[in-house]
């Protein structure tokens, strides 16, 4: 599948944003905003800016941007529509949460709104993941890994951002860094498990069944319908740089997950907390963009079978 820059930005930025929102909301739900009011308010502002940037990037993917509002109508069947609805609903919940933190940081209502904002953000991430997870012709997406992975990556990336903001506002704290390290470890393991899974998955179909011939018939393409690439090949038969897959996987693992894990442990130990948390965010961003690129570039679509591609 073609990795469109707009979608890579959308999923990565909203992952950071809603992951951060989840940590902020949970933090308040568990312990109240108390002394960390500035952390929560700045954090909410950062989350909303990142989420809005991601959603704006996704609009660049549309052929008819001026009609984007129509995408909120089919939430009964479409995960893309649900993502839009959830993203929009997250705004008022988050703003109410921020207002409550500002007025009465430790009130029960504030804690409730914290939990609600965390849930709304994670629900949006889940909808995003299910856009991919629900697509039957793509085996690398339509599997039980996709939705949990997106949630784990959101909590991981948002966690690194939470540690950075915590260090900047409240000061270095061991507990947030420990949580970020745990999330990084979970993300690392989830990604390895996902790659093992898709590398051992059998193809969804054969060319024989795609053209209605008996099982076991060996079919080879003779003449293609057209000599140049068409939309189907560009969009669904993406092959560019696939041969760099292994190298890019190592980069994504090292840069995106392992380095942030080590940096978070460093921050947890109280060593150069600011520098390590800044670096952890930067590494997570670059690593996750690489990971997201691979999520698309290494996904194969059944329709490519018709052109003799292996899926």
């Amino acid at each position: 599948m073609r990795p469109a820059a707009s979608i890579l930005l959308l999923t990565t930025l909203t992952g950071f944003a809603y992951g951060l929102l989840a940590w902020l909301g949970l933090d308040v739900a568990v312990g109240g905003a108390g002394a960390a009011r500035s952390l929560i308010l700045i954090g909410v502002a950062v989350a909303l800016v990142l989420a809005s940037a991601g959603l704006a990037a996704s609009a660049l993917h549309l052929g008819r941007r001026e009609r984007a509002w129509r995408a909120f109508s089919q939430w009964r069947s479409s995960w893309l529509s649900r993502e839009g609805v959830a993203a929009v609903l997250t705004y008022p919940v988050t703003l109410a949460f921020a207002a409550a933190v500002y007025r009465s940081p430790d009130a029960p209502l504030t804690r409730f709104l914290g939990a609600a904002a965390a849930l709304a953000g994670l629900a949006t991430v889940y909808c995003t993941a299910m856009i991919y997870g629900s697509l039957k012709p793509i085996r690398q997406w339509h599997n039980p890994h996709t939705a949990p992975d997106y949630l784990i990556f959101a909590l991981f990336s948002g966690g690194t951002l939470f540690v950075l903001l915590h260090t900047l506002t409240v000061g270095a704290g061991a507990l947030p860094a420990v949580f970020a390290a745990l999330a990084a470890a979970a993300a690392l393991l989830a990604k390895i498990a996902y790659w093992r899974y898709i590398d051992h998955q059998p193809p969804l179909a054969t060319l024989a069944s795609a053209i209605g011939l008996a099982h076991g018939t060996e079919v080879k393409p003779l003449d293609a319908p057209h000599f140049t690439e068409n939309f189907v090949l560009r969009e669904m038969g993406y092959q560019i740089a696939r041969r760099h897959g292994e190298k890019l996987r190592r980069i994504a693992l090292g840069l995106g997950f392992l380095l942030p894990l080590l940096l978070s442990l460093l921050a947890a130990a109280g060593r150069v907390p600011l520098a390590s948390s800044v670096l952890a965010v930067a590494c997570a961003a670059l690593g996750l963009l690489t990971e997201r690129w691979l999520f698309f570039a290494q996904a194969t679509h059944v329709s490519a079978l018709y052109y003799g591609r292996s899926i």
Partner: protein
Amino acid sequence: MTMLPERAPGARKMGLVIDLDTCVGCHACAVNCKEWNTGGEAGILPDYDKYGANPDGVWFNRIHSYEAESPERSRTVNFPRSCLHCENPQCVTVCPTGASFKRAEDGIVLINTDICIGCKLCSWACPYGAREFDEDAGVMRKCTLCIDRIYDQALPEAEREPACVATCPAKARHFGDLADPDSAVSKLVEARGGVDLLEELGYRPTNKYLPPRQAQIPTAPQEAPARPAQGVGAALLRLLDKALSR
């Protein structure tokens, strides 16, 4: 509305039956499809870089040719590929706007290009690669089963069939109601063992494909005819042969 419609009892299921035994791979159906749909109700079907090095464009119908080898025999199979108007079309349910829809009365899957936002998700949801993006209009396009021909009362009744069916010189394409067990297309599917493409994915296509038949008349393998020898000596021998044969 992108929820799939309840199929009313007795509703028709209009679709195509494509005979892979007789298809000669001439691309006439694809060309006539392009011709009709670039000028008909569906408006322009765009072409890009028409006279350049990489011509490209939107086609609703693409013709592949394959070599199929089984233990019994090998053969060329020509394979036209277009929308199958599935009964369980995920391209419809993933649409966030309601632009992609399936008609309750005849099962035809269509795109309302007036409200399509061009998110391309429907093309990802189709395992048959039947949807193509119109870069000029910023919307998705697909086969309409020539909805502007098959119901056009101004056309003579014999012409109320999709352009691809009307033009096929090998009569390899058939159009009709696949919900009616007594229709010509249903009988053809029954008689010839028509199949669903990619049955394992569960889209339940309406269009059926008739697999290539086994040869009915056994034919002995033929030896290549001997080439007549060249040269003056050979010509003399042929002359002698002719004379003696009198």
